[in-house]
């Protein structure tokens, strides 16, 4: 079993969020959705973001990409590559999106056009930005689909989104996010629709991307098991605030915040593994 050590402090190249606030509506009726989020997402590390349903995890990720609702008021700083993304003109932000910062959306269909084949969707952007030939791009798409464990990758290129199962689509969405080799990846519940065997493969892939390519990953998930396996540090959100942020081991084994503690206590099998299956088990570590 390989125990991945909690990584070293931040290298340069990641993303840094400071005092991010977001509210919707005006005056007294304004709904404060993010209430001052500060979070570093260093390169070569996986930063976990957990928290209860509706606490603002998705909104945080969306805001980094400038995809917050049109009527939202945003404050604070999101620093990437020496620039504040919140002050970047839309055009510049558009070129950053997908190239340097990519996102796996919680809704896997959201980044896919329902009427175009997966092959053309995966390759369009890449070809536009790198001038790659169609054949090269399709080959890369096939390789990436294989990496995310989509069955029959060559056939998948010709299919349309509605022809995939929920979990397959989620993998296609992951593929589309990593196609252009971004340097920051925001993965919003990337494995909710996956069974544990496929999930294990995806987790391993994310870990490799992070270690080998120095990707900065923000991993949003409510699944503490996934968190415990993958995240280097874990931040816990509640009602628009980060209530706790620390080293993975500390947050899981000795949570400081009562809410985090409640989350961990609520685990169905109180953190323990199921009874170990027979010797035929394939459950060996990498």
């Amino acid at each position, binding site marked *: 079993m390989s125990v991945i050590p909690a990584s070293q402090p931040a290298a340069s190249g990641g993303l840094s969020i400071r005092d991010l606030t977001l509210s919707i509506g005006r005056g007294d009726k304004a709904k404060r959705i993010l209430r001052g989020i500060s979070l570093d997402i260093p390169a070569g590390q996986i930063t976990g973001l957990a928290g209860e349903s509706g606490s603002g995890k998705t909104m945080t990720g969306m805001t980094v990409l400038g995809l917050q609702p049109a009527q939202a008021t945003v404050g604070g700083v999101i620093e990437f590559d020496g620039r504040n993304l919140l002050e970047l003109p839309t055009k510049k932000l558009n070129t950053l999106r997908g190239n340097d910062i990519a996102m796996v959306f919680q*809704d896997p*269909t959201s980044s896919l056009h329902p009427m175009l084949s997966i092959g053309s969707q*995966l390759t369009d952007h890449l070809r536009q930005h790198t001038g790659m030939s169609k054949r090269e791009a399709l080959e890369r798409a096939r390789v990436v689909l294989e990496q995310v464990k989509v069955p029959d990758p060559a056939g998948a290129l010709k299919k349309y989104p509605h022809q995939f199962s929920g979990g397959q689509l989620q993998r296609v969405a992951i593929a589309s996010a990593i*196609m252009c080799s971004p340097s920051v990846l925001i993965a919003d519940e990337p494995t909710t629709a996956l069974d544990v065997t496929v999930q294990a493969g995806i987790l391993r892939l994310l870990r490799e991307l992070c270690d080998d390519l120095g990707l900065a990953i923000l991993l949003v998930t409510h699944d503490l098991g996934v968190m415990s396996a993958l995240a280097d540090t874990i931040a816990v959100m509640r009602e628009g605030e980060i209530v706790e942020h620390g080293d993975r081991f500390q947050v899981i084994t000795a949570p400081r915040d009562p809410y985090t503690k409640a989350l961990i206590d609520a685990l169905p099998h109180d953190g323990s593994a199921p009874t170990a299956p027979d010797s035929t088990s394939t459950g060996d570590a990498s």
Partner: protein
Amino acid sequence: MSQTTAPAQPDVLAVAARRRMRFPVALRNPLAITGTAIIVIWLLLALLAPMISPADPLAQDFDRLQPPSAAHLFGTDQLGRDVLSRVLDGARVSIILPLLLVVSSLFVGTIAGSIAGYFGKVADEVIMRIADLVFAFPTIILAMVIAASLGPSLTNAVIAMLIVSWPAYARVTRSLVVVASRSEYVVAGRLLGNSPLTSLGKDILPNIIAPVVVLATLDVGTAILLLAGLSFLGLGAVPPTPDWGAMVSDGVQNFSSWWISVFPGLAILTVVLAFNFLGDALRDGLDPRTADAVKGRAL
């Protein structure tokens, strides 16, 4: 790609819903405001024309071919009619008629497209074959041929334009309906006992109609130009009905009296531009994925 066609757009459905918020945002852009203002002014002028016209648009009361002056701001034409009054009155035919045309075309096309997309099979085959047939010909030429064979009259010109324009709406609607009808909320509604028609009216159409309406807005300008074109060729408004296209045509025959054609020509220009400004702004408020559907034009 997440970020290709749709620059990393979240949730096509949420965006669809957000459109109710986004249209107002889109409309805040200066071109959209200018466009809307011009359209509103023209519509008011068209409605109030009988009251505010300085003269009867049909009366041949004045000296012929007078250049613009204090008495006749836009001059008079070859029959001694007041050009300003004719331009104002012409707005009724030249704007309101194309507007009605686009609305009817939208109506017919949406119904045909919904039937084809939702019920599929034979209905789909028949409707889309007819649409393909119309698409096979260049729009303007087909409209001219139909208008000519029906005989020159405004009604016939409008019928001709309707025939050539509905298939574009049908196509767009069809493809949007096909995708929308697979949505889980549509299916969930059917499981709760919605009949196919209820489902179409309650769950499908409200969610796809926005891009179709934007397409229509973009088409109003073209429809105005096309009707003016048909009238110019003598296939539309029959004299003496004031119509901008026919007026431009009159001016061309009285070449030295520039004011006869320039003022109706400017009127056409302002309205067409105004509708295009508005249509473009509305299109920018659409989800980029559905905005694709609006790339083609009906006319």
